[in-house]
């Protein structure tokens, strides 16, 4: 149904909770080798959108295509090509790093699993923690384990919900560099949410501003502020959060 170069295609997606409209008829896409930032204030509908893409929340209406596979009809095939890391979804703390990666590697059907685990363990600098239970790791280390799991199946669509929220600046920079490198070198597209506008400017090729469940703005994070008469992306973010209807188009 979608162009195969689009790893994610969202069409007219909505989610109602009773009388509350959490996501309101949004459409967007993520292409291969592209990092798209999904921005917006708390309650804007970012996590609801990501939950629907991850098939843990049923849309009220609309279509979600992952690498051309309709999620509603081919959930398993679609999710095999995706993965995610979210600050609110750490891996089970009662299993070691290696055990968690083995369990999720099996679930995602990763070929040559032992070798692949070794690769992601090295990639995310987890060698010294491989036999440590995840619950004993610092929040930053847990984030790296979660990212290692997210990269395990070499996903074509990677969803990152505030992936660097609990990392120190140096580690966050390393993680950004790693993801940027992987995204630009392969077939992967990334949908990235963050409240760190510096990070968004550094990493994202394109951003979508979400407010009250609708996409208000879309464009290059380095050009958008000027186009709307703002000094910086952070200023634009604040404007979207506080006065979404008062934005000026330059």
């Amino acid at each position, binding site marked *: 149904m979608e162009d195969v170069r689009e790893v994610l295609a969202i069409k007219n997606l909505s989610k109602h909770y009773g009388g509350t409209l959490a996501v309101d008829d949004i459409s967007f896409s993520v292409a291969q080798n592209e990092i798209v930032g999904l921005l917006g204030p708390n309650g804007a509908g970012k996590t609801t959108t990501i939950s629907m893409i991850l098939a843990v929340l049923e849309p009220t209406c609309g279509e979600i295509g992952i690498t051309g596979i309709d999620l509603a009809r081919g959930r398993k095939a679609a999710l095999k090509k995706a993965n995610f890391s979210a600050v609110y979804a750490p891996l089970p703390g*009662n299993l070691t790093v290696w055990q968690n990666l083995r369990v999720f590697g099996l679930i995602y059907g990763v070929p040559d699993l032992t070798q692949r685990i070794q690769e992601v363990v090295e990639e995310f600098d987890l060698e010294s923690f491989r036999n440590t239970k995840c619950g004993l790791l610092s929040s930053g280390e847990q984030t790296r384990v979660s990212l290692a799991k997210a990269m395990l199946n070499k996903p074509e669509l990677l969803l990152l919900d505030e992936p660097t929220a609990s990392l120190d600046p140096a580690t966050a920079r390393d993680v950004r560099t790693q993801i940027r490198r992987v995204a630009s070198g392969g077939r992967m597209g990334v949908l990235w949410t963050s409240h760190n506008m510096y990070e968004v400017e550094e990493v994202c090729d394109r951003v979508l501003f979400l407010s009250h469940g609708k996409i208000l703005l879309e464009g290059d994070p380095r050009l958008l502020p000027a186009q709307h008469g703002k000094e910086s992306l952070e200023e634009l973010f604040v404007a979207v959060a506080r006065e979404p209807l008062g934005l000026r188009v330059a």
Partner: protein
Amino acid sequence: MSFASTAAIVLRQFYLMRGSSARIVPLFAWVAIDIVLWGFMTRYLNSISSTRVNFVPSLLGAVLLWDFFGRVMFGVTMAFLEDVWSRNFLNMFASPVTIGDYVAGLVLSSMMTTCVGLLAMILIAGAVFGLSLFSYGIALLPFLLVLFLFGIAMGIVATAIVLRCGPAAEWFIWPLPAIISPFVSVFYPLSTLPHWMQWVARLLPPSYIFESLRAIVQGRDPWWAGLALSGLLAMGYILLAGFTFSEVFRFALRRGLIARYGAESVS
């Protein structure tokens, strides 16, 4: 169905067992205590009974079989609760795992843990109190099979309850075997029950197992027709349980319960 996904659920459970004595000991400790307690009770009853009835195969055998049912049910539930306790729902259900893979993994995990408990019960009951399950003859096979199927069905229903009502609802499921046991006449003939309870009992597969067990102990043939019916009923309960879990899961997807699963977020 994906064998690898199902194997992953079992492997997860194996890792948890291997790394925690707190998970291994309860597999056999509680059933062992039950067998010891009821073993001495049957010895005492044998010593004071004026008849020549041997209470070991009727009472202790019934305890062993009922504990087997409980182990199967809780085996399924515990494997599911591991995902609840470790807040792993999002990682698990945002993956390519299907409901079929997941439930199959819970069932296989239960088989793994039940075997440990059953072995412990058989060893203690045999070595200390002289109970041989083989004294029930070929009927032992349908006894174990029906109780296993019904245990799986109840385990799946219990997981659906926790999924629908939230982690705090785990307290609803621990007493389930105790609530069912008076109806299925574990220790007394079905005819002892009031009329309305007998009707309920006829809908529960274990009732036929324990009636047959008592028939064998009294030197009669097992109630073959009843056993066949209990097998059909157990299969029906499995289908009903699978349907219930599937419907609850779909409800959870619609309402966003999986995405924001927590003790206070589900109602």
